[in-house]
């Protein structure tokens, strides 16, 4: 008898702190039924997502660019540990590395640009063109040929 064993999809849901993280939390029902691992910058954010596992990484931006190589290494470790089929991020810059490594290993990667960016796409969202299977904006006026509008977190 053929058994339709549903493959459990491993999802890495990753975001920097503050607004990036609260936007990711508002998308949680999207990965119901999947094996989700979260990653963000504050360890106490584990309380937001328990019992799902939470990994942490150090934050970095262009203001402290010298931290980026260390952040990239940590992202590689996270991706190798989770082996995600899908990565979903709301930014900011550090998760770009997770998308890069996960995509190289065959994962589908989704960039959801922050709702903060209502006039132009974030600079990280522009860079995400190289590492995201799909990019979406939360503002219909910013949608283009390859940047979709799927609604917003609010």
């Amino acid at each position, binding site marked *: 008898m053929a058994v339709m064993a549903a493959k459990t999809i491993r999802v890495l849901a990753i975001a920097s702190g503050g607004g990036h993280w*609260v936007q990711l939390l508002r998308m949680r029902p999207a990965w119901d039924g999947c094996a989700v691992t979260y990653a963000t910058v504050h360890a106490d954010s584990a309380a937001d997502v328990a019992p799902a596992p939470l990994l942490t990484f150090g934050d970095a931006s262009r203001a402290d660019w010298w931290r980026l190589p260390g952040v990239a290494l940590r992202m590689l470790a996270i991706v190798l540990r989770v082996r995600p089929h899908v990565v979903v991020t709301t930014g900011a810059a550090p998760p770009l590395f997770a998308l890069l490594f996960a995509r190289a290993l065959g994962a589908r990667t989704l960039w959801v640009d922050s709702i*903060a960016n209502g006039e132009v796409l974030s600079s990280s969202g522009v860079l995400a063109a190289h590492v995201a299977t799909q990019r979406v904006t939360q*503002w219909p006026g910013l949608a283009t040929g390859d940047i979709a509008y799927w609604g917003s977190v609010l």
Partner: protein
Amino acid sequence: MPFDRLIRAMDTWAEDHPATPVFFQIGKGSYEPRHGGFVRLMPVGAYRDHLAAAALFVAHAGMGSIISAIQAGKPLVMLPRSKPLGEHNTDHQLATAATVGQRDGLHVAATEGDLAAIIDRLLADTSASPAPIAPFASAELIGHIRAFIHAAGR
């Protein structure tokens, strides 16, 4: 990044309103308020508790603050961070204030000099809170992300 302009202005407001307790989270700022208690960074649980107990929330125009205020049903007064003043890497908080900041219950101060008048008006008007919202993003966004994730299973 530091946002001393906001903390200093609110410390002055607190000095002028000794009957109204003000609690500060000041991040990496160098100015330490003298007219209210303060912390550098509070854990997420304490952040939610402080917000739940507050009559009014005053913050930068960041999405973490904005979504937290909306979810807690608290009126928010936001002062956008300025890139020329060294308060952020970009001026995107001006865009956030001009777009998301127009929702009911959210109030934008163009400069720190505008804060006191807005705060005094809101504290006298208890109808100024944001309307309640669902804990999760729109069904449209959740559904699209879900479809993206499950496309990885095929």
